[in-house]
């Protein structure tokens, strides 16, 4: 009987003939923590009585969520992280390096066929390059640091097939927002997604990562795509380790197969205060906006910055609005400088901040005021997410955010493209 991608990767890493529903203990290829979750992981590691990690070359901590530190409380945690890094010899990405989910694939730590865990729910991002990667909690991370393994319940798989092509001005972010609106916040709980379609094949790796990044927003355990030539070419430029691409068998068994027609989809917006509160942009166009954000693990990549810069070139952000741009890594930042993108942003009165999560998680870098509307390329718009429970967050693509900050209200980007 055939296997899904999830069943194959978990079988490979556990030495078992694993099927959906089985519990396996599996070896991990990489383990990641960020500065919001590693403090608790270090406490658990110490409480477990451990002194050494199993393999420092398979572990990174990334300081990205509050980077640089906005207050003494966070600084104390950062100091603890740096001491732990020195003690154990694991890899650290300190302030200014970028967001964990950009760095892990970009710096070659993960390759197709890998099994990867991260103490951050958007670890599912690397499913776009055929990695079974999933988010876990801090104590699980400590257990993984010590043993190099974790237990998994092998998930069933929901296959998503996208038919036809997106219109011009409708992007991968709109595709995934539309999908989450259709499935609901718990529509894929405990399931791995397998994502396919001609439109996906035609997308860049950057665009594919936006989709896999948001798999968790419908409750999914992983957001998997197959590795095609584009994937393998991209991976070979970033990683030294050999890729082991995994494809589902033709007779694999799926919990369900859902098809979506992309042809008629408009740009999408997730309205406050849930990610599945998704509507076509025409329903909310004209809503006044005071702040925009382009960046985060969802949409801070070079392609995202390029699209936004093309819309903003030669123009200025609306006088009643402000835009913050946070490139997802320093590599992207440097490339954007070379391409003149950063110059375009600064001339447009954009505030460009250090590579990192920026204001997405509400600790710094742009907390909105009471009653303000924010339009953001992030993946979450929960009440209080950006640091103020009295603000309202709308989610959209980089093009939508750029068009909206030009007009000072939610605007359809297609007129600018």
């Amino acid at each position: 009987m055939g296997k899904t991608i999830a069943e194959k990767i978990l079988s490979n890493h556990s030495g078992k003939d694993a099927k959906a529903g089985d519990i396996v203990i599996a070896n991990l290829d990489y383990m990641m923590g960020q500065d919001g979750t590693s403090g608790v992981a270090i406490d658990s590691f110490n409480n477990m009585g451990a002194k050494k990690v199993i393999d420092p070359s398979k572990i990174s901590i990334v300081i990205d969520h509050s980077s640089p530190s906005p207050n003494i409380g966070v600084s104390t945690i950062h100091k603890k992280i740096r001491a732990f890094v020195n003690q154990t010899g694991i890899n650290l990405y300190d302030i200014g390096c970028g967001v964990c989910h950009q760095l892990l694939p970009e710096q070659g730590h993960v390759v197709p066929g890998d099994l990867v865990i991260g103490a951050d729910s958007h670890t599912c991002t690397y499913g776009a390059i055929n990695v079974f990667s999933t988010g876990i909690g801090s104590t699980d991370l400590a257990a993984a640091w010590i043993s190099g393994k974790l237990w998994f319940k092998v998930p069933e798989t929901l296959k998503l097939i996208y038919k036809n092509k997106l219109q011009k001005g409708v992007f991968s972010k709109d595709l995934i927002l539309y999908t989450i609106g259709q499935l609901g916040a718990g529509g894929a709980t405990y399931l791995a997604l397998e994502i396919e379609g001609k439109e996906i094949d035609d997308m860049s790796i950057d665009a594919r990562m936006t989709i896999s990044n948001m798999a968790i927003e419908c409750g999914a355990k992983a957001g998997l795509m197959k590795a095609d030539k584009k994937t393998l070419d991209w991976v070979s430029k970033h990683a030294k380790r050999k890729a082991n691409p995994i494809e589902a068998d033709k007779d694999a068994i799926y919990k369900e197969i859902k098809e979506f027609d992309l042809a008629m989809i408009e740009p999408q917006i997730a309205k406050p205060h849930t990610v599945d509160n998704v509507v076509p942009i025409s329903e909310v166009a004209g809503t006044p906006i005071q702040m925009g954000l382009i960046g985060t693990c969802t949409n801070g990549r070079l392609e995202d910055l390029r699209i936004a810069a093309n819309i903003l070139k030669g123009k200025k952000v609306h006088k009643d609005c402000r835009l913050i741009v946070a490139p997802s890594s320093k590599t992207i930042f440097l490339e954007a400088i070379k391409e003149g993108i950063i110059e375009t942003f600064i001339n447009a009165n954009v505030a460009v901040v250090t590579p990192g999560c920026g204001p997405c998680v509400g600790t710094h870098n742009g907390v909105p005021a009471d009653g303000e509307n924010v339009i953001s390329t992030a993946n979450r718009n929960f009440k209080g997410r950006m640091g103020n429970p009295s603000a309202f967050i709308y989610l959209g693509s980089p093009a939508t955010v750029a068009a909206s900050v030009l007009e000072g209200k939610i605007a359809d980007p297609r007129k600018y493209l």
Partner: protein
Amino acid sequence: MKLKGKALKFEKMNDDINTDYIISGRYKFKIQDPYELAKHVMEDLEPDFYKRVNKGDFIVAGENFGCGSSREQAPMSIKYAGISCVIAKSFARIFYRNCFNLGLPAIEVDTDQFENGDEVEVDLDNGVIVRTGRDLSQHKIKIPPLPKTMQTLLSDGGLVEHFKKHGGFKL
């Protein structure tokens, strides 16, 4: 394990209660003391919820409780606020796992009939919940058997204790 307390439900929301509601980023990122964090539990959904909790009480919710961020500080704040168990129609998967890693039971049953303030007794060994309604009628609800890994983590008192006991995974 027998647990006894009141059911605490949320007026504003029942389904899809996310971990940003459980513990906001503006506290979670800078406070390390779990008792300090616990004072802010559920704050953005119900200010002063912390004051409503008597030790041993239960949070009762609908579908997809604990969705969103993987923050372990979410079940941690719930536990350190004095909640003995979370009962919901369904749980988001990272939150569910984190609960058992901390030794906090998370039980999946139909919670539609539960009302705020109901007296609840949870008997994990015999797999039954007894709910006493406002009219003093008693209702028994069978708890579906927990997966063996969860049972082991609970009986060991969480993953840290499990690792101290066994030096690794013995599930």
